[in-house]
């Protein structure tokens, strides 16, 4: 369409030639005629360019204009480096935090699973709201009932987790977490092998050969992706199995196991309890929707079958528990624990962004007031409102673009922190990386901020002539601007307060938990897992007990060991279900009263001495408490006080009331009362616990060693002692009780850490905001301060005045934040079950921190105000 250069040149040459010809015909000299024609034509290049301009598309002009504006913006921002840097860093923090949280949310909640047709996968669980169980899994008879009666689920897969001793694959004997699956599991889950094959229908049942699949993580990390692993034989507990393949990388759900084996590898799965006891629940159930079926139809059908099943077997479902069936998409099931926490984090990140934006708005507003003169000159020279806005937009685009760029750089470490944090709630967080979606989020936020910011400053209005300010370039601060500045600063304080109070609450909880008295000497006690050869079966076997006792004796003889005890669980690390119902002499529950429950514990003599738990009355167990002697028990202080208010617990009898112990009542004489040890809760609660001696029950293989010096220094010696007695006995997870408890606390610590991080960022931004507002307000009121000094104010007065302004902003912000936070918590209770309002201490602490920060932030501007030179100030306008 556009004529090329030659054509344009020819047209212009033609014009000149015609003009020259006419002049010559009129009688002019050829040379003079040529000169006159050229003169008449004017600027050749300019004409050619404006002709070409006709054919340029409109956006080209716009882009050129924008580029010009941006060059101009960069130049003018370079003149205010401090302010520009503050804005960029502030925005970077806000954008980086949001981008990071968003990538984690995308990775954990939104991304599809690798499983084939993953949206057809469902997860089925039983809940018992009556006894507070959210997932009580299934027993084999239940699974069989559901499998046989539900047509809208085309196939079911089952998975249960067991601890098996693994020998082979070039490592010491050790206990691994293993999944045990039926033949349909991998087909239902829609997973593929990266090596060899997966388990299928041929591997199902009690007559198949033992076969195991390695998970990708285990294979790639522990075995260095060894390609020759397929076909190797490993020993799993008492059986052996062949490694048939390696699973592709996938979300390990329901458990992060190292191997997944077929049923024959687990003797327990072949036993009668597993297959006939309807209440023996340890299987998790997955389903693949039949073609045409929806989650809703499957849910309806499964629920109907389940209800019928519960009715047919009332003995296995107590009415109090009110067992129900839940069906969710697998993806939602995996994501659900992380959902709430991620949404809370997103809210925190959004708050930081709001704070960042309002801070930046503040700085830009202050700057635009300073440059009202410049804008007025430009308006006077003919720049329209649009052009001025475009200048401002270009400037905020430069600022926000730079901020977004820096923010994206920050996003990488942020994602690492947040993903590690979220991994506690969803395994999927481990795979989260910074992806391109972050770019879009960053760019979106930056553009939103830029457009917002460009509309913050007022333009010189055509009605009010700005002539006065033009020449002097003085700063004229209007009440309106001032109010807006303060409003932004107050907003920042209010939002920071909410975050600070929240972080304070988490910190207070953490400190309370960390410093809580546990009643146990944690620093000097080393806990070691020494699982009996199989999986805890045969725990009462005299040989097994003898082995553990002999091991304990030999360890006790090591130098630096003050005592050794056997127990069934390591405090805070191991779990042994809820308390068990028991009865005692001379106590009959009133009608309708719940029978008492106590924790069932099996310990060796010297257990209480090793832990440092005081023996309050009676005696400790001794080696004479054997199976063939009188059955005895020791109760915790709380049991003694609740059931024997008269303090006569000793020599009375107690007995467990549970099928687990058989139908016959076996009374045990209470021979001792010991201090409470809460080995389940981090913060000690009154604990009902009843202990019986190892020799009368059996061992589960936990060893407690009390050290005189550094407990960890004993680990090699302990390992040598065990190796000396048996080559196959695993020795695992040595740790002091102190470290075990700290490990349990680490999610709380991470919670507090992440939230404090957000609160810290918010506080930093708010301090910059308050300082900025006051500094600006002081510099704009130099004259006012001069007048005040002239009429007799002292510099100290002015100092106090500015400080109190800072304090007032903070106070109003805190009040607004407290009110807003309270309302927010009220709204949140409607959506989340657990919403805690922070106590007085964190709230007061947050307020104190903010007031202090505001005062510190006002110090510099206040000092400047008090140092105003009277004469200069009065002359300044």
């Amino acid at each position: 369409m556009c004529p090329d250069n030659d054509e344009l040149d020819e047209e212009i040459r033609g014009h000149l030639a015609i003009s020259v010809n006419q002049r010559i015909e009129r009688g002019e000299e050829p040379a003079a005629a040529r000169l006159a024609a050229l003169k008449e034509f004017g600027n050749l290049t300019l004409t050619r360019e404006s002709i070409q301009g006709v054919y340029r598309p409109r956006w080209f002009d716009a882009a050129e204009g924008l580029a010009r504006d941006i060059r101009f913006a960069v130049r003018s921002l370079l003149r205010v480096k401090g302010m520009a840097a503050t804005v960029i860093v502030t925005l970077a923090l806000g954008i980086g935090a949001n981008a990071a949280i968003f990538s984690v949310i995308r990775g954990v909640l939104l991304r599809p699973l690798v499983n084939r047709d993953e949206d057809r996968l469902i997860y089925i669980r039983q809940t018992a709201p009556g006894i507070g169980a959210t997932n009580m899994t299934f027993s084999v008879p239940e699974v069989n009932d559901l499998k046989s009666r539900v047509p809208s689920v085309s196939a079911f897969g089952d998975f249960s987790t067991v601890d098996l001793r693994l020998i082979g694959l070039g490592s010491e004997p050790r206990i691994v977490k293993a999944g045990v699956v039926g033949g349909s599991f991998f087909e239902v889950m829609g997973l593929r092998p990266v090596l060899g094959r997966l388990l299928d229908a041929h591997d199902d049942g009690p007559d198949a050969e033992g076969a195991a699949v390695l998970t990708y993580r285990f294979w790639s990390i522990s075995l260095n992706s060894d390609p020759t692993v397929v076909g190797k034989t490993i020993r799993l507990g008492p059986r052996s199995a062949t490694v048939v393949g390696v699973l592709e990388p996938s979300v390990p759900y329901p458990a992060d196991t190292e191997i997944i084996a077929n049923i024959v590898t687990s003797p327990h799965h072949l036993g009668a309890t597993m297959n006939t006891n309807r209440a023996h629940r340890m299987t998790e159930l997955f389903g693949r929707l039949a073609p045409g079926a929806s989650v809703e139809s499957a849910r309806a059908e499964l629920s109907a079958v389940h209800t019928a099943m519960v009715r047919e077997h009332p003995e296995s479902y107590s009415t109090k528990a009110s067992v129900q069936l839940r069906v969710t998409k697998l993806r939602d099931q995996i994501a659900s624990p992380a959902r709430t926490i991620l949404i809370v984090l997103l809210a925190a990140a959004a708050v930081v962004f709001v704070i960042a934006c309002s801070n930046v708005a503040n700085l830009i507003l202050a700057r635009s007031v300073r440059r009202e003169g410049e804008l007025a000159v430009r308006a006077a020279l003919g720049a329209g409102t649009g052009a001025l806005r475009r200048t401002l937009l270009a400037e905020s685009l430069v600022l926000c673009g730079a901020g977004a760029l820096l923010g994206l750089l920050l996003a990488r470490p942020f994602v690492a922190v947040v993903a590690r944090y979220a991994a506690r709630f969803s395994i999927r967080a481990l795979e989260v990386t910074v992806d391109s979606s972050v770019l879009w989020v960053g760019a979106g936020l930056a553009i939103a901020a830029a457009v917002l910011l460009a509309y913050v400053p007022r333009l010189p209005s055509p009605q009010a002539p700005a002539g006065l300010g033009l020449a002097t370039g003085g700063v004229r601060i209007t009440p309106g601007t001032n109010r807006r500045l303060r409003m932004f600063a107050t907003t920042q304080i209010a939002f920071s307060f909410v975050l600070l109070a929240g972080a304070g609450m988490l910190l207070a909880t953490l400190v309370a938990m960390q410093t809580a008295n546990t009643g146990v000497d944690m620093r000097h006690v080393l806990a070691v897992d020494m699982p009996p050869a199989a999986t805890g079966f045969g725990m009462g076997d005299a040989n097994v007990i003898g082995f553990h006792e002999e091991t304990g004796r030999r360890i006790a003889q090591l130098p630096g060991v003050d005592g050794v005890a056997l127990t069934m669980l390591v405090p805070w690390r191991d779990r042994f279900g809820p308390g068990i119902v028991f009865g005692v002499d001379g106590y009959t529950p009133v009608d309708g009263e719940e029978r008492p429950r106590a924790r069932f514990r099996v310990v060796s003599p010297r257990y209480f001495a090793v832990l440092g738990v005081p023996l309050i009355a009676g005696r400790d167990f001794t080696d004479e408490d054997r199976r063939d002697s009188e059955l005895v028990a020791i109760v915790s202080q709380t049991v003694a006080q609740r059931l024997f208010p008269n303090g006569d617990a000793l020599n009375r009898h107690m007995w467990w009331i549970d099928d687990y112990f058989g139908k016959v009542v076996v009374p045990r004489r209470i021979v001792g009362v010991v201090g409470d040890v809460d080995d389940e809760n981090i913060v000690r609660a009154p604990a009902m616990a009843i202990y019986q001696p190892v020799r009368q029950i059996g061992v589960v293989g936990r060893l407690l060693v009390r050290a005189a010096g550094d407990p960890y220094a004993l680990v090699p010696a302990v390992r040598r002692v065990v190796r000396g007695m048996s080559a196959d006995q695993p020795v695992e997870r040595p740790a002091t009780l102190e470290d075990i408890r700290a490990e349990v606390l680490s999610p709380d610590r991470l919670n507090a850490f992440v939230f404090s991080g957000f609160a810290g960022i918010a506080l930093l931004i708010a301090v910059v905001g308050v300082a900025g507002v006051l500094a600006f307000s002081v510099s704009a009121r130099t004259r006012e301060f001069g007048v005040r000094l002239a009429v007799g104010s002292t510099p100290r007065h002015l100092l106090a005045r500015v400080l109190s302004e800072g304090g007032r902003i903070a106070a109003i912000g805190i009040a607004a934040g407290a009110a807003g936070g309270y309302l927010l918590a009220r709204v949140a209770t409607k959506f989340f079950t657990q919403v805690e309002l922070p106590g007085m201490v964190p709230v007061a602490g947050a307020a104190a921190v903010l007031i202090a920060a505001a005062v510190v932030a006002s110090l510099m501007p206040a000092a400047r105000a008090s140092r105003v030179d009277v004469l200069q100030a009065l002359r300044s306008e």
Partner: protein
Amino acid sequence: MAKHSDDQRLELLQGTLDMLLLRTLQWGPRHGHGIGQTIRAQSDDLLRVETGSLYPALHRLVKRGWLKAEWGVSEANQRARFYQLTAAGKAQLSRERDRWSQLVDAIGRVMNPARASEE
């Protein structure tokens, strides 16, 4: 030579150049130099179109489809680009002519209220 000195010459009213160009081409194709001369001659030398405005305007009208351009040879045997009205250009000319007479009429009423009311 020139019938009028420079300060007697009139500034073109904004927006009227297109109309003048279309009108000038009503009598047939012309090249750029010829168009400028015609406007000058017909306005008794009161209106002069600078080449810096004339050529961009011509190209703009071509782009809009109101004119079309073809290479030809001038009376002095010089190769030149000849501009010609299209059908759309003719329609545009009559629209602009109407708007122009309305404008003149309106301005006339404002400037000479007495005469307007007599009519």
